């Protein structure tokens, strides 16, 4: 196991910067998720760690040693590919044992070791099959087994669960979580599924357009998203963002917006600085922090009902403030709400997030 470090790494394809000036540090034994929308440079970052892509500039260190230009075979890493990349002409035993073969292990040894790992992953009875003769879930576990069969410094995963159905994905996620706790492996895991990142990571690096926007623990990212982008990416459904107009009145911050009724919030220096450049702020409230209330209550937002989706134990109640500005609440309710009913959703002041005109978080009191 080893640490991984990116020192202002940039990767350009022609004029296009897929990864730009990225700095971050993955500690020994950490499980880091690279989270972000499609095309933000997650795979490119991962491939640079593996040595399959060479950075245009910057340095990559594994275990403190510079590996920027080292061939993949000399990095002693393991990687699980999104398409699994199982060799179609080899049976599972040979597939799983391949890394040991290139390391010069004798046939008996490497098949024995492959069998051990396969048994743990419950594919030990399939060792004579070809990859085309097993199910998608079994293929996924085979590719995992091939990565786990030898001791690597770092384990890299590129959306390994994205080709599985929902139930298998949950199962595999649980297994990976267990594995990480068991082995204490250093792992980098690429995903665009925020729930997967939340469940697995010790730290999440949220990426957008080739940059890391926030790098923090899952709970920190959930509680204190650094930008509106992160706020809008994490959570299920993501945080509601309401554009508001902020003014200072009587030592308090007064927020005004369509359908919004709010008591003044305590002023801070940070808010003062934000207001100094623009009065346009963004108010953020998570769906799970909203609840149904009577019309006109303080700290509430009201608009006609847009949709009421029953999710089993809870419902997603969405109201439409016009021009596509919608607010969704996750609530336990049996209430019969009808489309176009006026609905008020209330929240408490402690659950309010504020972002400045640039979308950057304004630290709350005590942050």
């Amino acid at each position, binding site marked *: 196991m080893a640490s991984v470090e990116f020192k202002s790494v940039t990767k350009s394809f022609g004029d296009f910067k897929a990864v730009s000036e990225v700095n971050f540090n993955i500690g020994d034994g950490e499980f880091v998720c690279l989270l972000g929308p499609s095309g933000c440079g997650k795979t490119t970052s991962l491939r640079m760690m593996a040595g399959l892509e060479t950075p245009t500039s910057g340095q990559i260190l594994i275990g403190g040693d510079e590996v920027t230009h080292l061939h993949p075979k000399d990095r*002693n890493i393991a990687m699980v590919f999104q398409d699994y*990349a199982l*060799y179609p002409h080899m049976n599972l035993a040979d597939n799983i044992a391949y890394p040991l073969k290139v390391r010069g292990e004798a046939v008996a040894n490497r098949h024995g070791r492959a069998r051990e790992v396969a048994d743990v992953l419950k594919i030990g009875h399939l060792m004579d099959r070809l990859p085309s003769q097993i199910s998608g879930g079994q293929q996924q576990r085979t590719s995992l087994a091939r990565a786990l069969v030898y001791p690597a410094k770092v384990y890299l995963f590129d959306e390994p669960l994205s080709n599985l159905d929902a139930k298998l994905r949950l199962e595999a996620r649980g297994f990976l979580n267990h594995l990480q706790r068991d082995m204490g492996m250093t792992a980098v895991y690429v995903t665009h599924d925020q729930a997967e990142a939340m469940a697995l990571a010790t730290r999440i690096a949220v990426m957008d357009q080739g940059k890391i926007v926030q790098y923090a623990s899952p709970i920190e990212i959930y509680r204190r998203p650094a930008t509106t982008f992160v706020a809008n990416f994490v959570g299920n459904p993501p945080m509601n963002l309401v554009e508001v107009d902020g003014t200072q009145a009587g030592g308090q911050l007064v927020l005004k917006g369509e359908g919004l009724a709010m008591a003044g919030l305590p002023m801070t220096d940070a808010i003062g600085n934000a207001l100094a450049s623009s009065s346009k702020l963004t108010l953020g409230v998570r769906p799970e922090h909203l609840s149904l209330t009577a019309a006109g209550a303080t700290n509430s937002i009201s608009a006609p009902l847009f949709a009421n989706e029953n999710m089993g134990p809870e419902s997603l109640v969405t109201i439409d403030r016009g021009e596509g500005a919608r607010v969704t609440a996750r609530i336990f309710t049996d209430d019969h709400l009808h489309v176009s009913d006026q609905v008020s959703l209330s929240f408490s002041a402690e659950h309010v997030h504020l972002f400045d005109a640039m979308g950057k978080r304004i630290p709350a009191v005590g942050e």
Partner: protein
Amino acid sequence: MNLTIPAFFGRIAFSALAALIGAVFALPLLWFLFAPFNAQAQMGLAVPDPWTLSNFVTVFGNSYAVQALWNSFIQATGGVILVGAAATLAAYALSRSSVPGKGAVTYVLLLFSSVVSGSAAMVPIFLIISAAGIMDTHVAVILTFAGGLLPTAMFILRDFIDSIPKSYEESAMVAGASPVQAFFDVALPVIRPGIVVVVVWSFVNIWGSFLIPFVLLRSSDNMPASVAIYSFYSEAGTPIVTLLAAYSLIYSLPVVALYLFVSWKFGFRFFGGIKA
């Protein structure tokens, strides 16, 4: 099936026409199967009476004819090995590496390839071979064929390799394999069906070709079977039908055998697919 009367007769007429066309194509094939076993074979189709192997005995008694089959084998095999190996390596490089303008290179080569083995280039080829001092050798024939077939072979194979995910070799290299190991352990077995297609195609091409060996070879010791067939003509230029028929059958057997072997062993799977 309920057919109206006109539709019914329409069907019959169509089937009769189709059968007639089929017969036109089947007759030469039948001749080709019957004549070798007929000691009195003529140009006309006749069922042998009695069936005999005497034509084959005569052919195998002709040392020049037998030597020619062996020459065909040497030239075809040599050409196939050269084309197969070179096309595989070149196509792999063209597919996997980021050579600028590699697409253009392939298309230009493809364009010229039809010239090289065609009759238009016969004179320059003759001059080059003669200047190289390898006139009247197997090598001359093998090299000329390789030059003519390689571009198309590369094109077919590159297309095939393009359709194979890079992640196969990438995962092998991350697992610790060198690029050469990744090629031989992982890429080559996956490309193999494509190579087989190229091998069969070039074998058939070389085996059946007449003009190039005819021009580049002098001595009868080096002539392949396609040229040797000419020896079964009398002084006056009329074909000796009995021997010609027997020899033609022998001459076509290796190609048939190759097809059967390949389809039994590999099943001609095009899981990469040839798009062109």
